[in-house]
């Protein structure tokens, strides 16, 4: 039986998501090794063409090509394995419904990636993210004022950060901060794109990203120098 807990949205136009105008803008490509900026390989292009005509095996092949990236994205954005699995399923279900509308205006991986982000955002909105975390992040919180990040020079990060420590710190971020950090610093979207996706101001996006990094800095310093907390 299908396991998704999320209602589906009707396929409309060529947009991979319900909130985003068609076609979705390509995210920032300032990272030369970023996978979504690459042209699809011939095997993927062939599978895509066949999947668009209803070839189930071709769709399964597309799933195998993109499952890791989509699942990882969902997992990082929600920080919960069960939810990430449900959201991955919903993303590929939406892909199945809408794949025939893909016209190649952007790379397929970009289109699918944006579709998955929209699926996650829809779910987060249902949970009240935009009403809580985004607004909350704009409110000045005393302990998060500018002075909070003051610290003695010997408490600065060493210049290299352990990946697992960073993973843990990101997972512990409040949902709103985590979302902005993942979209900007990990996935490479620009603030104007994030503002459009999250329906917030560009300034809000910049502010939240900054606060997310400050929180990560505090967490990583605490992790690397536990004696400093005593």
């Amino acid at each position, binding site marked *: *039986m*299908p*396991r*998704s807990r999320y209602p589906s949205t009707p396929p409309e136009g060529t947009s991979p998501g319900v909130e985003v105008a068609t076609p979705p803008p390509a995210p920032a490509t300032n*990272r030369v090794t970023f996978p979504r900026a690459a042209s699809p390989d011939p095997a993927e292009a062939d599978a895509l063409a*066949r999947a668009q*005509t*209803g*070839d*189930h*095996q071709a*769709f*399964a092949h597309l*799933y*195998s090509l993109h*499952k*890791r*990236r989509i*699942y*990882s*994205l969902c997992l*990082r954005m929600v920080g919960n394995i069960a939810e990430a*699995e449900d959201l*991955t*399923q919903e993303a590929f*279900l939406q892909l*199945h419904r809408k794949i025939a509308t893909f016209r190649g205006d952007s790379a397929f991986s970009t289109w699918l990636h944006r579709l998955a982000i929209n699926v996650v955002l829809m779910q987060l909105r249902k949970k009240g993210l935009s009403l809580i975390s985004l607004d909350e992040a704009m409110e000045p919180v005393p302990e998060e*004022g*500018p*002075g909070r*990040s*003051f*610290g003695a*020079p010997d408490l*600065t*990060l060493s*210049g*290299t*950060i352990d*990946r697992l420590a*960073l*993973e843990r710190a*990101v997972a512990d971020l409040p949902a709103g901060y985590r979302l902005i*950090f*993942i979209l900007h*610093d*990990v996935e490479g979207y620009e*603030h104007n794109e994030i503002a459009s996706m999250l329906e917030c101001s*560009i*300034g809000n*996006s*910049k*502010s939240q*990203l*900054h*606060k997310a*990094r*400050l929180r990560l*800095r505090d967490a*990583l310093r605490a992790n690397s120098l536990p004696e400093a907390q005593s």
Partner: protein
Amino acid sequence: MTNDPAKMSCAEFQAQLPELIGAGVDASAHPHIVNCELCRALLADLETIAEAARQLLPVVDPPEDLWSHIESAIKSEDGDTNSSLAKAAPTTN
């Protein structure tokens, strides 16, 4: 509050920092940073974190049985619309 960047307090500088970084301005060249070790360290840390974020590209595979759930859901949907995956399998190349 001062209009002279060189005479900014740390609080004033850090209040501007999100906009400076977000706008792609080289904050390390800001007059306040040149003379402030604390803010210089803060900026270095934030840059290190942003750089480290690139390590967080996809590394996790979904569970093996997820595809079977998706496949089941697809077949269920196709059944609802009186279509068949088995019928719609052209293999033109």
